């Protein structure tokens, strides 16, 4: 399940971007977004999802359960 960035919480500090082992995080017009196709929750790379661990504002990088396939999975 990929992570997503809650835009209203994000301070655009860019701390997450270089930490992502999958290069899934990019800036677009001043806001940061995670490409769900690239995000692997850092499994196989690190013990913790890097974006969550480095983000200065809690509950900004969260699991994205909105994608249809995850909802179906329950």
């Amino acid at each position, binding site marked *: 399940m990929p992570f997503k960035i809650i835009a209203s919480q994000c*301070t*655009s*500090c*860019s*701390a997450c971007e*270089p*930490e992502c082992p999958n290069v899934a995080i990019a800036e677009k017009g001043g806001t940061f977004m995670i490409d769900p196709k690239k995000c692997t929750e850092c499994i196989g790379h*690190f*013990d*913790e999802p*890097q974006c969550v*661990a*480095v983000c*200065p*504002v809690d509950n900004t990088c969260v699991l994205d359960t909105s994608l249809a396939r995850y909802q179906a999975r329950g």
Partner: protein
Amino acid sequence: MHRGSSSDAIEDGEITQSIAEHKGCGKSSRSGGVRCGSPAGRSDLPAETWEKVKKHPCYSEHAHHHYARMHVAVAPACNIQCNYCNRKYDCANESRPGVVSERLTPEQAARKVMAVASTIPQMTVLGIAGPGDPLANPEKTFKTFELVHKVAPDLKLCLSTNGLALPDHIDTIAKLNVEHVTITINMINPEIGAKIYPWIFYNHKRYTGVQAAKILTDRQLQGLEMLTRRGILCKINSVMIPEINDQHLVEVSKAVKSRGAFLHNIMPLISSPNYGTVFGLKGQRSPTALELKALQDSCEGELHMMRHCRQCRADAIGLLGEDRSAEFTTEKLATIDIKYDVESRNAYQAKVENDRAAKAAAKHADLVELAVSLGDTKVLVAVATKGSALINEHFGHAKEFQVYELSSGGAKFIGHRRVDLYCQGGYAEEGKLETIIRAINDCHAVFIAKIGGCPRAELIKAGVEPVDQYAYEPIDKSTIAWFKTYLDRVTNGAIKHVERGDAAIRQGALISAA
């Protein structure tokens, strides 16, 4: 503070200070304290160190009257969380560390440096101080230094960090000729650190509590040692947090001194619920003026103490205490004609140095004469000044007061008190006088160029003597001349010497004159 290697480098205040603090010959130390010798003679700093600090407004109290610095906000990311910082907040009207109005790419930053240096010839220092941690953004930080050095090789490069990533970047810092590094060190005891830092991000992991603080302090002290071993000047910033690290900072001061730190800057915590920091929301109080001074005094002698810090924003521009960042927004930069000319900048700065030397020489003669006994009495006085070491500001126009301690040793600068806080909730214009009095309540007198009848009466009622007879005169001579008359009046019974109370350190927005 620091004395020059030759008589022409002597500064007025440095002489004042050396008289004020001289505790007998033979007391000397490598990185602090007082050294015997003619005030017009040898330095207690090696010549190469003096070269590094004489034009750096943060490292030399007296350079800050003459030279300006600028910060570029290229480093928004941070790798630690501090309870006195709120990363969600920035505001154009705020003046405190971490606050910026816009973030820049290294290329934009280099262009901005050119524009500012073309406009302000006394701008000698480029610093990167956030809004996050410059070393959590190493690519952006070092790229900026590289670009700036290419076009403006005469600028001093300066960097401010929390120290967590510092040991990894020492080679790069040295290679890029970064001469000054500031490390914020608030503790060396991880138990205390756990109360200040909720977490750190290190080696791809988030650490919390005592474990986090232990890693942080180890890395900070290791980085400090590595830098000083290479001859890079290190300033230590410490935030004084009452009941958390206030007593502990004496230990910190010793620890950083033994590792070769050059200067220690103990700053009062900035804390208010509307800043949204953990400390602010918890109601953690800031220190009072008396508490801050007592701590700084007890660390004095261990290290050079910095007392002229304005806790400036991460994109501040200009002389300390006079933020001109609003003049150099990206929008306005487009209209500035950039003519970076090293020669004319050097010529300007040579003139500044000549003026400094001439003034210092003249004052030296006066001050030697002053070394008469005035007894053991010490008083604090506030001075309204626009700079040039003169009493040259009207009471009502003052954005800050400089505070001096007067004693038989002379006039010693001990700090400043900010007073322009119109935009702070609860401090409306009508309450302004009251808040000014609260800010200088520990002072016996306030020196101003001019003052109206109403504030004069209120000050007298509050026990602070308004003194305007030395308008546009030098601060040191005038305050001491007044001090003599004050002591005379005490001796002949005209007035009674009473101790003053404590004062509040006012915080928040410093509204730019621009």
